[in-house]
């Protein structure tokens, strides 16, 4: 029983990270119908910058803030420099460019910081909390993960639902041409969308880094899990990303706990197939939202 509880808690904590990753993918997919395969690598790069800052003696929270800010700029730059010239071309073109960017960023990180795995310092203790006398597989750091991603989700929802900027963003995603005719500067909104996505992706990477072997490739698998979460959630809404993240996190954790961790990616793939067969549009999507 306690093993089950531990695996479940582990799944929740992982699921929140996948949710943040999924949110990053959803931000961009909603606006452009592109899956950004470089999303994980962009987060990886900013997290390596955080790593260097921490090694130079900068405090965790300062490094945390600076890293998210760099993520914001990196996202905006990728949109302006790499994606903008491909506008109006077949959708496959920008997708291929994101795959190229993934390889380039991992190459850059490898040559600057080396390809060997190391440890990334956590913000909080990673030893399990105690409930009564039993230690559970949920640490202060896990509490931080859940809290940080919940803040990200609530902030995103508040932005979309409660602000004029969010209204502009939704309009640009749903009907870019009509939005332009209503005076929305859709190009700027697109840049902002990529920037915010990169912030979410950087957050996911910062949260993953202490729990994994930290190398230029540490986000590859998380991108797969985040993608699974995003598709399960319908590639459409923050709520979908959150629920998709939790489903993926729990699924992957159970597979890892009961069948062995080497089967985790396979488990995610199986989960993806089951959900796509039962509900091809994902759980939370608008019915017409997607062609897969």
């Amino acid at each position, binding site marked *: 029983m306690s093993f089950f509880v531990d695996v479940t808690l582990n799944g929740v904590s992982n699921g929140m990270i996948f949710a943040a990753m999924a949110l990053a993918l959803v931000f961009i997919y909603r606006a452009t119908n592109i899956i950004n395969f470089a999303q994980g690598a962009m987060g990886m790069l900013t997290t390596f910058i955080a790593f260097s800052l921490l090694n130079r003696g900068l405090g965790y929270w300062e490094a945390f803030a600076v890293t998210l800010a760099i993520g914001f700029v990196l996202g905006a730059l990728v949109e302006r420099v790499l994606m903008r010239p491909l506008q109006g071309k077949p959708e496959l073109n920008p997708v291929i460019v994101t795959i190229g960017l993934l390889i380039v960023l991992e190459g850059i990180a490898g040559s600057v910081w080396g390809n060997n795995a190391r440890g990334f310092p956590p913000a909080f203790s990673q030893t399990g909390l105690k409930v009564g006398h039993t230690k559970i597989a949920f640490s202060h750091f896990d509490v931080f993960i859940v809290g940080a991603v919940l803040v990200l989700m609530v902030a995103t929802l508040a932005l979309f639902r409660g602000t004029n900027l969010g*209204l502009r963003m939704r309009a640009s995603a749903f009907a870019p041409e009509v939005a332009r005719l209503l005076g929305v*500067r859709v190009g700027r909104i697109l840049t902002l969308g990529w920037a915010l996505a990169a912030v979410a992706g950087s957050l996911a990477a910062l949260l993953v880094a202490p729990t994994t072997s930290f190398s230029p490739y540490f986000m590859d698998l998380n991108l797969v899990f985040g993608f699974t979460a995003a598709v399960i959630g319908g590639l459409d809404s923050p709520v979908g990303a959150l629920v998709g993240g939790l489903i993926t996190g729990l699924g992957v954790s159970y597979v890892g706990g009961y069948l062995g961790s080497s089967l985790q990616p396979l488990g995610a793939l199986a989960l993806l197939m089951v959900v796509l067969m039962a509900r091809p549009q994902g759980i939370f999507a608008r019915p017409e939202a997607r062609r897969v």
Partner: protein
Amino acid sequence: MLAIEGVSVSYGAVRALDGVALEADTGMITAVLGANGAGKTTLLRAISGLVKPSAGTIVFDGVTLTGMPVEDIVRRGVAHVPEGRGVIQELTVEENLRLGALWSMGRRQRRAAIDQVYELFPLLATRRQRHASTLSGGERQMLAIGRALVAAPKVLLLDEPSLGLAPIVTAQLMTVLRDLTEASELTVVLVEQNARSALSVAQRAVVINLGKVVVSDSAAAVAADTDLRHHYLGF
């Protein structure tokens, strides 16, 4: 005044507009008529900047619009209601209207402008929080026009507003248009296949065929020309 001079637009090898000239006078409704594929929609898209003309100029109140980005043309007071009722279905009625006024005014002014639209189209007021996807065709058209009016435009470009509407709804729409132009300096360019109802409210009419202007006259003269009507307008 909106003055269009020698405007040509090509889509690849297909020339959609060929040296079109047109003057839409301030405070008047100019009907742009013609068969399917004549280039009417392309003309509106050229005015609002959605397509770039390969030749010619479009000038509004002394300002050259040709080459300006869409978002800036909107800020000069040109509102384009695209064909197929370009309401954003995923947004509510209120959100659609809010969006229409975002660039031009602050919160309080916007509230007043939106309430004015509800006064003009009372039916919309009862549907504020509903998604635009739940509206009927006529309601969507009202929303699309209302959303264009929220920003208090100087020029209103309407693309086939009667498409798919019941005749009585079309008649209501035309009445609203006439009232609007009579009460203000609003200039309307009304693209229609339904020539009869367009001519009933317009002061001027332009007939386009295969990308060229074939007739430009007063609406009454066009309506009275039986040959022309039979030949180009099908009634």
